[in-house]
């Protein structure tokens, strides 16, 4: 039996299980063994973007809904986490030199004398963890319901999500007394007394992040293999037909948009934990659209491709901007164009069209190298 056969175990095809195992081996074993803690932390940061990219595969690749505002949800998740950590770092002891001790330093600088009401819930870790997922999901639900019920789609949806990202960025920067402004929320120290700045903590957080990512991938495969996954593809193809088969298209779109938002938010929260701050530069238009390119490079139809795409683009960004900063924008711009013009299915498409068949010939197995990696949505 070929490695690339479509034999299924539960909702996973055999090849998908192998793909997941290979990825797990890479990010849990190979990468931690071969990189120092600084570089590993960097990879951990990249992997938090992969949550967004996986959400975009579900939402854009399968559902055909291009959101150019995923930074909103990444940021909201990250800010929720950062607010908790900031409050913990702003104990009365730590802030006794302030005119109002016990509130975050930037509030004190902006003449606030008490903690705003919407910061109150973030004194509690359980409430924070709920908020990390719930705040972005509810926000996405409001946007999604309003737009999808009125059949706003395609480029209109993309532009409106972009506008919302712009609004949120302006708001965060403008309201610095409540949000930390352009610098964001910085100087985060401990999680329930556990110092997140140590190398050990960074190791632990990296593995937590990796495990969450694998979990999210499995969830993504589950959604894709369910009938809901096929309805998403059907909707992308012929929205009216789905409607006239008795489905509420708006509900399905809202669901997948909320799911993508929640995934992005988990990534954002892990970002805050690993990097130690959150700022509006991860919320706005530019980061949001960059997150789309991760998905496009990985292959917009491939969940696992999204992870590789994210890693590859970010590795290239780091390498190029360290040595030739002026080349990075050219490279990124070229990547956008090349992916769209020449490789609409990204890395996964290249894998499915050339590498997988080559492997299949190599192992002299089944007649056709089924292109599973390009996630032909029909499967």
């Amino acid at each position, binding site marked *: 039996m070929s490695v690339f056969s479509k034999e299924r175990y539960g909702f996973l095809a055999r090849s998908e299980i192998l793909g997941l195992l290979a990825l797990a081996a890479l990010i849990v074993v190979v990468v931690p063994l071969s990189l120092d803690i600084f570089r590993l932390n960097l990879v951990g940061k990249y992997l938090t973007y992969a949550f967004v990219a996986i959400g975009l595969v579900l939402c854009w690749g399968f559902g055909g809904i*291009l959101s*150019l505002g995923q930074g909103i949800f990444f940021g909201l998740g990250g800010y929720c986490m950062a607010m908790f950590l900031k409050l913990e770092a702003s104990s009365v002891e730590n802030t006794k030199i302030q005119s109002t001790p016990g509130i975050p330093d930037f509030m004190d600088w902006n003449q606030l004398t008490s903690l705003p009401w919407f910061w109150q819930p973030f004194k509690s870790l359980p409430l924070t963890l709920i908020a990390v997922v719930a705040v972005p999901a509810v926000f996405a639900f409001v946007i999604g319901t*309003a*737009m999808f019920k*009125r*059949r*706003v789609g*395609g*480029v*209109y949806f*993309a*532009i*409106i999500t*972009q*506008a*919302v990202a*712009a*609004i949120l960025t*302006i*708001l965060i*920067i*403008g309201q610095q007394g409540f949000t930390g402004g352009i610098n964001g929320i910085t100087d985060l120290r401990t999680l329930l007394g556990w110092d997140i700045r140590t190398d050990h903590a960074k190791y632990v957080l990296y593995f937590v992040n990796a495990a969450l990512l694998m979990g999210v991938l499995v969830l993504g495969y589950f959604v894709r293999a369910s009938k809901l996954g096929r309805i998403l593809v059907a909707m992308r193809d012929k929205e009216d037909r789905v409607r006239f088969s008795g489905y509420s298209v708006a509900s399905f779109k809202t669901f997948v948009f909320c799911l993508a938002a929640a995934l992005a938010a988990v990534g954002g929260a892990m970002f805050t934990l690993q990097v130690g701050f959150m700022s509006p530069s991860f919320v706005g*238009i530019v980061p949001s*659209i960059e997150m*789309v*390119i991760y998905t*496009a490079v990985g292959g917009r139809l491939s969940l696992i491709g999204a992870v590789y795409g994210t890693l590859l683009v970010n590795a290239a960004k780091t390498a190029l901007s360290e040595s030739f900063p*002026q080349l990075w*924008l*050219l490279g*990124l*711009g*070229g*990547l*956008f*164009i090349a*992916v*769209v*013009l020449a490789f*609409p299915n990204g890395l996964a498409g290249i894998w499915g069209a050339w590498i997988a068949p080559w492997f299949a010939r190599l192992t002299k197995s089944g007649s056709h190298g089924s292109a599973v990696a390009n996630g032909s949505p029909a499967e």
Partner: protein
Amino acid sequence: MFEGYSLGDLASIFVMQGFAGLILFSVFVLMALGLAIIFGQMGVINMAHGEFMILGAYVTWMCSQIFQNYIPALFPIYFFVAMALAFVASGALGMLVEWALIRHLYKRPLDTLLATWGLSLILQQVYRSVFGPREVGVDLPSWMMGSLQLTDTIEVQINGLFVMSLTVVITVVVAFLMFRSGWGRQVRAVVQNRVMAGAVGIDTEKVDRLTFGIGCGIAGVAGSAFTMIGSTGPTAGQLYIVDTFLVVVFGGAQSLLGTILSAFTISQAQSTMEFFLSGSIAKVLTLLGVVGILMLRPQGLFVLKIRR
């Protein structure tokens, strides 16, 4: 928010802010006109539109430098030469881009969005390499400087008046092109039914290329106007692109009049609120208002009811 102002003050404030809003309105209209042609007529999302505008601004800046240094006698009229050159430069680049990129993507509107975003990044970097990262400003000829004192409390700047008259002229020309010229008829024919238009002998490829070129060329002229009210930098165009798209979408993508009215509404709302509230909150409220209205009326404000 009105406490502490007398009625007379308020009236002056509204007039002055209204006038400031009119300049913003002019740039919006000029940018949005080009975008409305490209998006409304061709269905292409050109995220690099701001960079086409900035190309026009750089061309204008170069002209001002050349005239100042080599032919100072003609400096007072350099601006008209610059505008023409800006149109040609942006238009030519637009046609090149259409040929190399856009024409392959007509059936994938979301992909044009990504590809032109990539193009905008490349153009920004090119500007940065060629013109440097610093912002540049043009010197105005003396006749454009100064302001007109209308009453004790109200004065308007001459360059602002000039930009506005320019906008009116260009809008009239575009309207004429779209609704009276043979090209406009061909564009509308292609929009309505590409296959039929091709079948009756319209060279649809040429029409597409010309349309995209003209849209970009108008952006170039907008860039010329832009130099008079802002300084030109590699990323200045990106700041306007989302606003401009909102203007176009808000007005109803296929309606020229809608584009103008929506540019007017948005710029006036923003500029009036800016005086009483902080700039960022004014902007947030304006954008929120637009997004809110778009959610209620996704087809835009000025679209006829048609059978799908």
